[in-house]
């Protein structure tokens, strides 16, 4: 793994991306024993517009706390995807919601598309777990943190009542990741 990994989780206010970032950082920092920083754009955007949560994970001390070039980009809306894809590293990967991001950017990166929100709604009856499924996918795909760590982090940060459903959502994410990896291998870059 690279010394320093930069992640950008983007979408719109209300999709729970700040929480997702916190969980990722906590997984890395507390449960995997690395260093971790989470920041966010905290704008008027927060009410409806584009929203962004950034996580930097490193084995050593973290100086600059924000993303310079992201290694991993999660995009849960078209606007967010359009805005932040510019800042994706050449060898970085993009994970996007395939129903919400309809115009997939024409880039040479690894792109993983999946109807995350729709799946959340279908399987759990609520879009609220979209963020956690996304986390599962990212971790499943990249192992940026260990699966154990992310599991613990999810449990520690979501309300007690919601623990079970969130754990399930996370595991679902892992599964989706597996599938996506396979598909990706098969079809090269762009995957649906």
């Amino acid at each position, binding site marked *: 793994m690279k010394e320093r990994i930069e992640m950008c989780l983007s979408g719109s206010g209300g999709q729970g991306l700040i929480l997702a970032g916190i969980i990722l950082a*906590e997984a890395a*920092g507390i449960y995997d024993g690395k260093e*971790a920083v989470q920041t966010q754009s*905290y*704008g008027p955007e927060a009410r409806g517009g584009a929203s962004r949560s950034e996580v930097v994970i490193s084995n050593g001390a973290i*100086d600059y706390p*924000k993303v*310079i070039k992201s290694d991993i980009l999660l995009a849960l809306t078209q606007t967010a995807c359009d805005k932040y894809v510019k800042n994706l590293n050449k060898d970085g990967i993009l994970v996007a919601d395939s129903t919400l991001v309809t115009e997939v950017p024409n880039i040479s990166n690894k792109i993983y598309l999946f109807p995350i929100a729709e799946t959340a709604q279908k399987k759990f009856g609520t879009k609220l777990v979209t963020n956690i499924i996304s986390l599962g996918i990212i971790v499943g795909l990249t192992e940026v943190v260990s699966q154990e760590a992310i599991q613990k982090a999810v449990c520690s940060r979501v309300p007690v009542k919601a623990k079970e459903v969130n754990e399930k959502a996370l595991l679902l994410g892992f599964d989706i990741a597996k599938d996506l990896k396979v598909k990706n291998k098969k079809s090269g870059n762009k995957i649906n």
Partner: protein
Amino acid sequence: MNNLKKGKNIKLLQGNEACAEGALLAGVRFFAGYPITPSSEIAENMARELPKIGGKFIQMEDEIASMAAVIGASIAGLKSLTATSGPGMCLKQENLGFAIINEIPCVVVNAQRGGPSTGLPTKPSQGDMMQARWGTHGDHPIIALAPSTVHEILTLTIKAFNFSEKYRTPVILLLDEVIAHMREKVEIPALEDIEVINRKKPTVPPEEYLPFKPDEDGVPPMANFGEGYRYHITGLIHNYKGLPTSNSQEIDAFIRRLYNKIQKNAKDIIMNEKYFLDDAKIALIAYGSVARAAERTVKLAREEGLKVGLLKLLTIWPFCFEEVNKLAQQVDLIIVPEMNLGQMVLEIERAAQGKCRVVPYNRVDGELINPIEILGKIREEIKK
């Protein structure tokens, strides 16, 4: 959530959370405030945690009242904190002056956002650095600290209270939106490992107590209201008894003592960190979140073989004049990246006394300066 009963502890804390945590560790038992982005989480944490340990939280009608309540509570014996951002800082200025002139310990957090006026409420800035020094009218000293990591927020909050109690003076803690809202892994020290300083109490009986007569260190012992020492406090220039005076000698002595108790202890108060400065020919000087960009810049520059170092300030006021003066004699160039139009650079120019080039690098668009830009600036300046 707070750490008072447990030992050392590792957590992912938000900057504002760390500030609250640090305050509780420092012994804070009173918070008065008025919400404002990006500081509100400090209040929210204090509202939740203080009553758990018998402390008090109150949301006042505005920042003026918050500052007043904090001063009142401190006089009545509780270590007290308030937190705000630029617009609220403006409103606190008058009562901040009252705390200064009456030597009341307390800490004021300013989580800086873009200004002037309502400005950019959710974006970071370092635009209030000079306001911290000069915001309240009249001649006065001030201590201001500026952390750049969440861990430093915690430790400097404790330091802020220690200075405040030791020197009987309000201390300003300058955060910026980036570090206030950032979450970072923090090792919280155990209570027993923390140095906590409390105000010096009078050792004489009440009849002999002169509330504003300094000891040799320039600081008068402080009796809390309700402890049997009856005395007067006033925002007018006052004598040893705390009563108003219009005697020129007393006035002069008072104002100078107030100033000198900080200035003469500058060595104790000034804290900074040096990265790769030993052989540096180019120095960056930075503080707050920008210092972290600068730190990275140093690494990047060194990779390119450029002899760049960083002086990272933790204490902003009193300003480390002598350190900078020395540095100016060593290096050819000082670059000062700031998220403002150039404030600290003014002090640096003054301290450099023409001995090296001093160049500001400023950003005022609400975005954190990044390491690459600073590196670019270095390259550009080298060519000149």
